[in-house]
């Protein structure tokens, strides 16, 4: 009898186990479908490595080989259980390294790049199998991102015309920054006072200031870097005074124009030529990298420089070493005819470089989960303010508000490093998905810097800029690359020839004709089509 019971039990046992197994499986499937996944740290049980492509700033290079050495990243790795392996392009890279990485077929898992140079943009890359469409994963595993997009009202901007999410992992801007202009010209305020000059408010006053600087022994009144420097392109620093762009497209009354063939461009060129001939412009600008120009300005040999708001504290600090009176103020964005300047690069609500996930990534779900982690309040604080632990005392709480410590701000750290350098080592812009309003305020917490910020922002807007969020189709971008390749070389070359006087500006019409022969009208048409689609979204 006992035996029979045992036998029956033995027969039933597997099916019992099977049954219980089944019900468990059903439950877990239901869970991930109906509600958020179970967010908990660490994200993985076993240490898992993901590779991450991003740039490393110039300041960062002085202290770290890769971001692996960043103390905040180490904290992130500890919390999540992930091992993030960074891949950086070399210093001075113009995007070639990115293209080599893509050509090699050995893509990093996560790639922080807008893919705007890839034929067909992100959609083209997904089509070619370089990237995967993260949409479904994001909706399921990064709900906080979707929630924030809704809160900020950015649904139109995060997707391409095809509906692919192309702004994942970018930065939500706090009220303190959004809509402001963060790049422009700065002038030595102390020199203006020394030579009893007024702050320049018009183009003529500006030219006059440069001339007086020169007469009083300022070696290079206006120091700027080479034509390809992104600062030129993004801010159209001097071109915008003439109502044109330095080398890009812009929009006028809903119509796309190409800056370098407009009549205003001729005025822009002749102005630069005049500056160059009078020795008001850096005679070596064509071979200067941004860093070279900044050094000249910091050494006190120059009067005006183009800079980004985030660089000002460092410039002021080093400048004070060369000249104790060193002080700066903004050169407002004036235009020749007094109309408002609409060609600047204002900070968007959603700004910065997005991330994409390559087809090499083994576990896209994990990456989506990792970004959910980055979108948590605690993580945002960690990323913006640093670890704040005993070994890395980056912030303290004063009157209920977070504040950077002397360890960060005033060189009281083992590296004897200044604030911008400490930020690179203890916080990180790459992992930032939303700026902390308080932190951003404190970052620029210097009256001089805030004044420059206002000076730029009050005098400019970005209404005429070609919107960043337009996405060309695969065919369009292929055709554009073909047309633009030779035009870009030609415009770049002729720009220098006109400015340095080896070709007379009387030949400007021939130059425009050549560009038209190279097919610029077709390129403008393609750009217009993209814009129309964007506006109709």
């Amino acid at each position: 009898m006992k035996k029979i019971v045992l036998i029956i039990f033995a027969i039933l046992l597997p099916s019992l186990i099977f049954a219980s197994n089944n019900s468990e499986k059903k439950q877990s499937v239901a869970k991930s479908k109906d509600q958020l996944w179970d967010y908990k740290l660490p994200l993985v049980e076993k240490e898992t490595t993901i590779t991450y492509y991003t740039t490393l700033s110039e300041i960062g290079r002085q202290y770290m080989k890769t971001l692996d050495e960043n103390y905040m990243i180490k904290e992130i790795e500890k919390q999540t259980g992930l091992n993030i392996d960074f891949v950086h392009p070399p210093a001075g890279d113009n995007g070639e390294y990115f293209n080599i990485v893509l050509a090699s077929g050995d893509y990093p898992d996560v790639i922080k790049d807008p893919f705007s140079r890839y034929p067909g943009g992100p959609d083209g890359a997904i089509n070619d199998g370089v990237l995967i469409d993260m949409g479904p994963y994001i909706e399921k595993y990064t709900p906080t991102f979707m929630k924030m997009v809704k809160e900020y009202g950015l649904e139109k901007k995060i997707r391409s015309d095809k509906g692919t999410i192309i702004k994942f992992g970018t930065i939500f801007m706090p009220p303190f920054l959004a809509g402001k202009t963060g790049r422009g010209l700065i002038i030595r305020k102390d020199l203006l006072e020394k030579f009893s000059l007024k702050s320049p408010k018009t183009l003529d006053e500006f030219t006059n200031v440069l001339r007086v600087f020169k007469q009083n022994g300022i070696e290079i009144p206006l120091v700027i870097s080479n034509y390809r420097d992104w600062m030129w392109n993004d801010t159209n620093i001097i071109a915008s005074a003439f109502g044109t762009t330095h080398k890009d497209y812009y929009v006028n009354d809903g119509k796309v124009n190409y800056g370098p063939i407009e009549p205003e461009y001729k005025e822009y060129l002749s102005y630069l030529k005049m500056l160059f001939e009078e020795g008001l412009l850096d005679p070596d600008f064509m071979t200067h990298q941004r860093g070279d120009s900044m050094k000249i300005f910091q050494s006190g040999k120059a009067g005006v420089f183009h800079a980004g708001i985030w660089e000002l504290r460092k410039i002021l600090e080093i400048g004070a070493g060369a000249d104790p009176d060193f002080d700066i103020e903004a050169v407002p964005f004036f235009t020749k005819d007094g109309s408002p300047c609409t060609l600047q690069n204002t900070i968007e609500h959603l700004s910065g470089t997005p991330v994409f996930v390559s087809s090499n990534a083994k576990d896209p779900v994990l990456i989506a989960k990792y970004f959910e982690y980055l979108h948590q309040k605690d993580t945002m604080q960690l990323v913006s303010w640093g670890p704040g632990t005993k070994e890395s005392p980056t912030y303290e709480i004063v009157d209920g508000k977070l504040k950077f410590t002397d360890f960060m701000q005033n060189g009281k750290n083992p590296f004897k490093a200044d604030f911008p350098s400490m930020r690179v080592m203890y916080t990180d812009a790459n992992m930032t998905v939303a700026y902390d309003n308080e932190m951003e305020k404190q970052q620029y917490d210097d009256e001089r810097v805030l004044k420059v910020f206002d000076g730029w922002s009050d005098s400019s807007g970005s209404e005429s800029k070609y919107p960043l969020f337009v996405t060309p189709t695969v065919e369009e971008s292929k055709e554009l690359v073909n047309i633009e390749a030779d035009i870009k070389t030609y415009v770049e070359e002729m720009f220098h020839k006109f400015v340095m006087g080896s070709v007379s500006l009387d030949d400007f019409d021939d130059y425009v004709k050549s560009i038209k022969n190279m097919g610029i009208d077709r390129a403008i048409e393609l750009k217009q089509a993209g814009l129309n689609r964007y506006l109709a979204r």
Partner: protein
Amino acid sequence: MKKTLLLNIKRYPLLYLMALPVIAWYIVFHYIPMYGVLISFQDFVPARGILKSSWVGFEHFENFITGKYFWRLIYNTLSINLIDLVFGFPVPIIFALLLNEIKSEKFKKVTQTITYLPHFISSVVICGLIIDFVKSRGIIPHFLSYFGVEPFNLLTAPELFKIIFVSSNIWQGFGWGSIIYLAALSGIDPGLYEAAKIDGAGRFKSAIYISLPSIMPTIVILLIMRIGRLMSLGWENIILLYNPNIYETADVISTYVYRRGLENFDFSFASAVGLFNSLINMILLLLANKLSRSLNDTSLW
């Protein structure tokens, strides 16, 4: 033929073993990648690979040849390299002949070492130095200002680029280039010099009539090889030195390939241009070889 090769291998196995890595290197890095030229007939997309990219035939070649910059690129490539050849090629030979006449071993060694040195410095550093030297406030314009030349950035003048490029090339390479000639010179039978001395030849005469003819085969072989590389020489330095204002005289085929291919993500077009470049190279090599064989019986094959 096959039998003798096998026999040879059997007789000198070690020699063949030593040659093996070099042969492997050529196969792996020079022959296997050759199938990659296929992409110049395609609209190549790295992610799809050669098999799945679409074919476009000679479209890229046509675009290049009918393009705006075709003749300028050909002219610049040939002229820069010809100038480099005419002025750069004899320098190591003359240097080797001069060095050969020096009696003091110590002085000879020191001179040799000093002249080799630039060869071992990375091009990036060399070009960085040059850019700094020729800046409007650099040492060379400063020096020129004593002769009444208004200081300006020398690298912004299209007509000066070739001079700067070629002279920096010569400076960097002549010491290293002279090694092979010195080796050839040391192989000359001293008896020849003694005989010439008895016949009353001075040092100059014996250099002209003994040293130079004895190293002539070496010179010719090196010249042929140099001509074979005529279209691709030293372009890394050009990329590091040039700027848009002097594209007119400085832009060569290789730099154009670099800009189109790597900066614009236009791999197919770039490799089509590269292939075109190699074809011209090969034609030049064949011509040079033929010419030299008919002139003085020295040739590569």
